[in-house]
């Protein structure tokens, strides 16, 4: 990573001896005679003449000496001579001299070469990487002197990637030395207002090498910039491209992960995983290994809106939650909003996890692939039609083959397989219109030591259309269909055979409009609507079966939202982003439902009547205004204080009474009994970066309250139940915590260290004693793990070898232990403690990996790498659960570990 150049003007007053700079009319001829003079002194001497100014980085000229003997020599030749002696590169523009390390661009040296001067219609085009890099040191003149009436000018331009010429979306454009900046739009375009004169503009984006341009702006003009990709070799790591961004960004509680970060973490069974990366972020926890989903700041797993290209994904994992359902090869970036959630998002109360897939390489066909012990994967991307591009990715496991090889009793009659296919077409309809069409499907099948086959699938279609009215205004129209279903079937014995299904259909439409101006004002507004069609569960049986089929009526519901937001600077140091979302839900009837006696617990015994609704008849309507605000007080150029309040509501819930989320949990819409879950979060944070963004630190605190959290009566029966409301309680939750984070973004060693202290409590909120868990008192939630430490370190040991390691520590999760025993007949039975009174042992795990690049040749067509990784290198038997089982008349405690040993893996990856 290139450090930002510090351009320093020297104002040394060194006695002039033997130097003559002949007047301008004589073409700046220099006469000088020195032997073994320090270059810095020589420069000072020349600058004293008042004609030339030198620009360089101090360390470039450190310790360099020159011996010169010039007699009315033109400046160009003088510099050539000095260049030969010092191996430095030079560039001369008018009377300005730029010095660079290395002499590689000397060949371009020419005193007469014209720097492209930009006016309205011309733009700088990068010819080669050298040219591109050279631009960092050029002063670019923009506009025409005297054209602008006032002393301000607007700079417009486009930021693209150097490699593929694709627009850099959400890139940062910052005026160096200030915190003023804008971000690029979805076409990579930006617009920023500047005072006339000299500026250094910094450009950065995730996964890209930051760069800068020195400009001298006279009037409105254009500057196009290309960024080099950091992804030079597979596994090469650059964790955070956007220095200073965290400090300057108005929102707090936002975690960004790019594809490189995801790939650089040591992976279980060699499968880089976007979900597992999330778990390394402060404030994000999981119940345990083998548990799908994650808990954000004390929220439940169903309170995270996981979006792929704007469409919700209902079950985000393969293989019992051990692998993310999304292949990391297609991920451009993933952003987790855990604190301030933009008002354009709604529907889940704890977080929004936005996963954006890449647009596809618009220059040439390229691809990546890999083989790990578990899976095979491949991704192909390339240009298509005119200005359009595509990608397609597929992944599949061959674990069935491995299962056959393993001869252990628990695995007999087992099968496990999954695949996912994802693709996207990216049409550039015109300069101002873009259309993206995406498709995703995943399928998991398993049967564990039994004749019962489990099968679940996700299917997502997305379409996004974007139109730019002008550089300020854009509008986006997107639609999706997301489908999730599972079925469980058994066919061995015809009289006992069955097939049980659950289906979720979700259609959504969203309009989003955004206005950005060059003063950093951002305005947005829009509306969205979601249509839900859920089949709670069906039990289909063949005619010969003695099982009674269970047919349930589909549930229908419509969620709608209208939102508006504004981001503006109150003073140059205070930025406010505020938004408002009006969300509502219509619970629509279909078929029969029960009426319960008022003022009594909702139980089967209290059913007083059955009502039959006509289809789509409005049963219940909910409306929730949601107010959100974030403020950022810049304390200095590298530190800020942020405050945020967020209110969110949720109308669709997972029903589960097991500890971990499983693919056979069912989704349920809010209705007259299941009230919408409401979240309130107050958060604050201090952010500081050091050493020009090399280190970033932050401390964030939050307090969150959740109303109508879904809790269950003891032993609730949640499947195939036509009066599910008798099993569910509307509870309350509260959580609070502090998150500390330290990141090192640059250098051979990079990484982060996150520590979180957080507590989460829930209670069942019922006036009836029979419905209360723990007597209606608050008790620790199953995912309440107060101490949590995550460390990630990445070391570029050599040009070909990258080492990385992660460390995870957390307090054990709460558990209910048996505290007493008694006997009934011949059975010894356990009596349990208060709910979640105890904790399982603490969790600790270290993973390591080493990646070896196959080739370092430039411009290679085919590139490969080998990654060796060891998961759980200390082989610690981390408890997933502690349980008690009787062995005859004795009860013994057991600890169940999911990955109880070190798991070494070799993965082969390639790209072309």
């Amino acid at each position, binding site marked *: 990573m290139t450090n930002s150049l510090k351009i320093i003007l020297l104002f040394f007053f060194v006695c002039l001896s033997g130097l003559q700079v002949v007047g301008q009319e004589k073409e700046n001829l220099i006469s000088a005679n020195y032997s073994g003079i320090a270059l810095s002194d020589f420069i000072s001497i020349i600058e004293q003449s008042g004609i030339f100014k030198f620009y360089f980085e101090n360390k470039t000229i450190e310790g360099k000496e020159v011996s010169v003997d010039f007699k009315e020599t033109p400046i160009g030749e003088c510099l050539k001579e000095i260049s030969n002696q010092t191996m430095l590169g030079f560039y001369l523009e008018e009377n300005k001299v730029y010095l660079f390390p290395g002499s590689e661009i000397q060949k371009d040296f020419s005193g007469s070469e014209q720097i492209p001067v930009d006016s309205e219609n011309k733009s700088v085009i990068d010819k080669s990487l050298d040219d591109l890099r050279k631009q960092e040191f050029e002063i670019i003149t923009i506009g025409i002197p005297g054209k602008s009436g006032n002393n301000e000018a607007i700079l417009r331009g486009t930021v693209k990637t150097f490699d593929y010429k694709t627009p850099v979306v959400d890139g940062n454009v910052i005026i160096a030395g200030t915190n003023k900046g804008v971000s690029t739009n979805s076409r990579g375009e930006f617009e920023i207002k500047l005072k006339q004169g000299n500026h250094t503009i910094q450009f950065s984006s995730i996964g890209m090498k930051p760069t800068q341009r020195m400009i001298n702006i006279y009037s409105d003009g254009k500057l196009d910039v290309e960024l080099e990709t950091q992804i030079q070799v597979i596994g090469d790591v650059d964790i955070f491209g956007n220095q200073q961004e965290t400090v300057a960004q108005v929102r707090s509680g936002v975690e960004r992960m790019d594809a490189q970060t995801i790939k650089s973490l040591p992976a279980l069974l060699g499968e880089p995983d976007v979900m597992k990366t999330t778990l390394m972020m402060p404030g994000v926890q999981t119940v345990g290994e083998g548990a799908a989903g994650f808990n954000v700041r004390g929220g439940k797993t169903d309170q995270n809106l996981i979006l792929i290209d704007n469409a919700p994904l209902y079950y985000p994992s393969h293989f*019992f939650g051990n692998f993310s359902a999304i292949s990391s090869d297609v991920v451009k970036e993933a952003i987790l909003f855990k604190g301030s959630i933009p008002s354009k998002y709604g529907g889940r109360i704890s977080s929004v996890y936005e996963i954006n897939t890449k647009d596809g390489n618009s220059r040439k066909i390229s691809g990546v692939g890999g083989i790990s012990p578990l899976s095979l994967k491949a991704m192909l991307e390339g240009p298509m039609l005119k200005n359009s591009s595509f990608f397609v990715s597929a992944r599949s496991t061959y674990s069935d083959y491995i299962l056959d090889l393993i*001869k*252990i*009793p*628990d*695995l*007999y009659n*087992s099968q496990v397989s999954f695949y996912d296919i994802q693709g996207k077409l990216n049409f550039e309809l015109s300069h101002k219109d873009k259309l993206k069409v995406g498709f995703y499907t995943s399928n998991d099948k*398993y049967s*564990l030591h*039994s004749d*019962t086959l489990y099968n679940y699938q996700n299917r997502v279609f997305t379409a996004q259309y974007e139109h730019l009215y002008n550089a300020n205004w854009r509008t986006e129209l997107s639609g999706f269909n997301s489908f999730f279903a599972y079925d*469980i079937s058994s066919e061995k014995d015809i*009289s006992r055979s069955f097939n*049980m299904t659950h289906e979720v259909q979700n259609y959504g439409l969203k309009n989003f409009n955004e206005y950005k101006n060059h003063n950093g004002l951002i305005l947005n507004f829009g509306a969205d609507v979601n249509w839900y069609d859920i089949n709670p569960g069906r039990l289909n049986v063949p005619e010969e079966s003695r*099982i*009674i089929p*269970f047919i349930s009526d589909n549930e229908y519901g419509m969620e709608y939202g209208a939102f508006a937001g504004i981001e503006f600077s109150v003073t140059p140091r205070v930025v406010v982003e505020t938004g408002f979302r009006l969300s509502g839900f219509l619970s629509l009837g279909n078929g029969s439902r029960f009426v319960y006696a008022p003022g009594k617990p909702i139980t089967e015994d209290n059913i007083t009547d059955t009502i039959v609704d006509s289809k789509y008849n409005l049963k219940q309507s909910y409306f929730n205004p949601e107010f959100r605000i974030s403020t950022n007080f810049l304390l200095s150029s590298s530190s800020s204080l942020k405050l945020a309040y967020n209110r969110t509501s949720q109308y669709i819930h997972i029903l589960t*009474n*097991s*500890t*971990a989320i*499983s693919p*056979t949990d069912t989704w349920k819409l809010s209705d007259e009994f299941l009230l919408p879950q409401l979240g309130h979060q107050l958060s604050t944070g201090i952010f500081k970066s050091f050493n020009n963004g090399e280190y970033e630190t932050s401390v964030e605190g939050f307090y969150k309250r959740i109303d109508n959290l879904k809790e269950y009566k003891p*032993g609730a*029966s949640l*499947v*195939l139940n036509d009066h599910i409301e008798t099993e569910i309680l509307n509870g309350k939750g509260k959580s609070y915590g502090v998150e500390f984070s330290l990141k090192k973004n640059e250098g051979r060693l990079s990484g982060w260290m996150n520590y979180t202290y957080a507590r989460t409590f829930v209670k069942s909120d019922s006036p009836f004693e029979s419905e209360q868990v723990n007597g209606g008192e608050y008790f620790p939630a199953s995912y309440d793990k107060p101490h949590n430490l995550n460390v990630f370190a990445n070391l570029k040991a050599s040009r070909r070898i990258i080492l990385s390691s992660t460390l995870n520590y957390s307090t054990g999760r709460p558990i*209910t232990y*048996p*505290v*007493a025993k*008694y*006997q*009934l007949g*011949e*059975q010894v*039975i*356990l*009596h*349990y*403690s208060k*709910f979640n*009174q*105890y904790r399982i042992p603490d969790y600790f795990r270290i993973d390591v990996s080493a990646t070896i690049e196959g080739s370092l040749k430039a411009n290679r067509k085919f590139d490969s790498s080998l990654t060796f990784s060891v998961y759980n290198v200390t082989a610690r*038997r981390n408890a997933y*659960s*502690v349980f008690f089982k*009787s062995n005859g*008349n004795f*009860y*013994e*405690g*057991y*600890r*169940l*570990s*999911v990955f*109880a*040993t070190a798991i070494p893996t070799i993965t082969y990856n390639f790209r072309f």
Partner: protein
Amino acid sequence: MKNRFIKYHLFLSTLFMVALLSGCIDPFKPVLDKSDSEKILVVEGFITDEPGSFEVKLSRSVPIDTMVNYVNESGAYVTISDDHNNTFVLTEVEPGVYKSLDETLKAVAGRIYQLSIIDAFDKEYESSPVLMPSKPEIKEVYWEEESETVFVDNEVIDEIGLNIYVDGDDLENNAAYYKWDISETWEVMMPNAITALDGKGMPYETFVKVPDEKKYCWVTQNTQKILVKSVENQSDSEVKKFMLQRIRPGEDKLFIRYSIEVKQYTLNKEMYDFWKGIREINQDAGSLYDKVPVSIFGNITCCNTNEKALGYFYAAEVDKKRIFIEKGEHEIVNVNRYESCLYVSDETLHYFTSGFWARSAFCSDCREYGTNIKPDFW
């Protein structure tokens, strides 16, 4: 509640991942707060239409790491009342066992029974009223030789064992929940003669004849598993081929003669949920997606404090059936329990009246396993 019968062993038996990645289950002893190991009253009362069934056992729970499983509750005042204004007082006949002194007393189907207890600390407990259901008749108890896939030394083999089933018929009762209690009895036999040592002077080995009173015994084993079933969501309330027990090859039950007595009765929903809960918390532990464990309280509540009692009180008419399985009727290879004993060099010597010492009582005295009194039904 409907459709409870499909038992979603979400991720069956122990874990898949455990097995795959040599994950494991180790013994683990958590530190427990002793103040929670409350001594809770445990009630076990089941009255039937059989004479002498008016019996209630009272005990208290004990901390999980104690050697005993319970302590008897003495000094309580126990009564059972019915809806015909009868009150039956139960007398403590041995510690923790309260019984009606009228041995002919039996419960009657259709009546409502309720249990009341005043414990030694003057706390009053009461059961919920129980309507006694009439008996669901057992159609047949039968057995079949069936193969099951098992693992022996990491090899998959099809093992043929003997499965015992029950068929029930309950068309009039329209019962929804069944429970079975089984009692197995089988004959065991010692070898005719064993190697023994002479204890006087220099020991020397000799063959000794095992006397008849140590040779022939009967072992009885009562229900180990909780056998309950819901037929609520079945089109008929008939029980068909419900497996009560499986006898595997290599056991000793079928070596000579085997008998099983099956008691069948119906449960109300409260009791079905109770037994199912007990079964779940005690037998289905250990999978990744376990239900969160909860304490299972039955139908006994305390009426003047907040304290709840464990256990249950229930009344039901019971249908019984006994079958015998003779040695020649099947092809399951069972062994003489003491076969391996002949070769064991156990230092525990056992005295014979003849003055010899056997290597082990388990090899020479069947009373170590059962009784030498032939049961009436044999």
